[in-house]
């Protein structure tokens, strides 16, 4: 494993970076899309079942299937990394939209009333009261999405996208287990880095939690 890493250091670093990008990009885009959708679902009761059921349905689809179908829907090339990004964005949105909707629904009514009494209205109240209260739950959802994205990106190696998953296919072709092990370890490392980043960011956004306790 060490010898492989020495011989292929540059290539492995590049794969690590590509893997990180392919995992993080869907996370960010997914979060940005899921917040307004989650708000809609929490605000309008009629939208809620539709959004939640659609999210559940999308989450049911196996990722390989989604990777393969993508080109025929968005007209990309079969080997394009965009397929992976779009497919994982769909998963991230599907996971987060329910989490965010439920978190917003569970904002206590008295907190909302207090905010209104203090003069918060409309979007200001949403951004400065409802959303921050939902942050811990969103963080929990993001952590799950991040861990799963790192694993799912590696499946992209099956359709030829070059990243840490390529260490699995390479190790299998060469019948060398240590290359596969290296890939697994680097995936776990990346997942740990992402998880720590999300937890720390969440903590910075919810300073009041520590002020109280």
């Amino acid at each position, binding site marked *: 494993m060490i010898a492989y890493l020495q011989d292929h250091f540059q290539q492995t670093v590049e794969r690590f970076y590509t893997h990180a990008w392919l995992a993080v990009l869907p996370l960010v885009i997914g979060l940005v899309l899921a917040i307004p959708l989650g708000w809609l679902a929490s605000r309008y*009761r009629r939208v809620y079942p539709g959004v939640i059921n659609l999210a559940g349905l999308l989450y049911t*689809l*196996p*990722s*390989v299937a989604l990777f393969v179908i993508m080109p025929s829907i968005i007209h990309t090339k079969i080997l394009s990394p965009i397929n992976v990004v779009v497919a994982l964005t769909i998963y991230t949105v599907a996971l987060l939209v329910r989490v965010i909707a439920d978190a917003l629904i569970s904002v206590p009514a008295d907190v909302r009333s207090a905010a209104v009494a203090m003069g918060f209205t409309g979007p200001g109240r949403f951004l400065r009261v409802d959303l921050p209260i939902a942050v811990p739950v969103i963080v*929990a959802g993001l952590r799950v999405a991040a861990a799963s994205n790192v694993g799912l990106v590696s499946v992209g*190696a099956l359709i030829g996208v070059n990243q840490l998953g390529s260490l699995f296919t390479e190790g*299998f072709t060469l019948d060398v287990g240590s290359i596969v092990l290296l890939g697994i370890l680097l995936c776990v490392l990346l997942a740990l880095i992402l998880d720590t980043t999300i937890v720390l960011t969440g903590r910075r956004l919810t300073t009041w939690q520590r002020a109280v306790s």
Partner: protein
Amino acid sequence: MGVIWDYLGNSSHWSGPEGVPARVLEHLEYTFLALAFVCLIALPLGLFVGHTGRGSVAIAGTANALRALPDFGLLVYVVLLISGRLPADLAYLLPSILVLVILGIPAVLSATYAGIQAVDPAARDAAKGMGMTGSQVLWRVEVPNAMPLILSGVRSSMLQIVATATIAAYVSLGGLGRFIIDGQSQRDYSQMAAGAVLVGLLAIVLDLLVAGIQRLVVSPGVTGRFRTAGPRRRPVLISSSQEGSVVPTT
């Protein structure tokens, strides 16, 4: 989208050991075999941990650690590790099923113990007060109350297995993943797309099936289906904190 039907529309792809029905059947076999083992291991363990409260930290830790591992990597690694020591006809089947079981366990295990632990302590106390023994409390109060969560664990475990079994085609397993892997190596996109659509449909059908079972076996007293349930008064099937226990499909 037309390319998908090119492959499926050809009647010669619907018969023989490499035809669509045979592959669907194979995929179902792997899924149910693995799921049976998962339930056999995870259900008793989850019930034990949930009922006694012993070992819950160890289980949560193991489940989380397993979740961080990339499924595809684990699959390839286990196959490389043990397939050489097995007779040829089992060389790929056994390690693949083993990995499917390993990956399926966390969802059922954590859902079962979380479901048992989340049972209203008042209901448990009332049952004890009525003179129920430990096992009566477990089977007549805790299990029925935890049933929605247990079944949602089984559901996500099953989806995980369906998805990972697809990838396992890469390490020579049969099933619907064959169309995707073979299509890829033959540069036949229509075959790949057909495999993707079929496996997606299979996942949805199986998911609906378990959802149906869930409606049948969960007591109406637990789901609150007696009352009108709007979004704000939904029965707590999966609380947001347990949402994290749903394992994403691979």
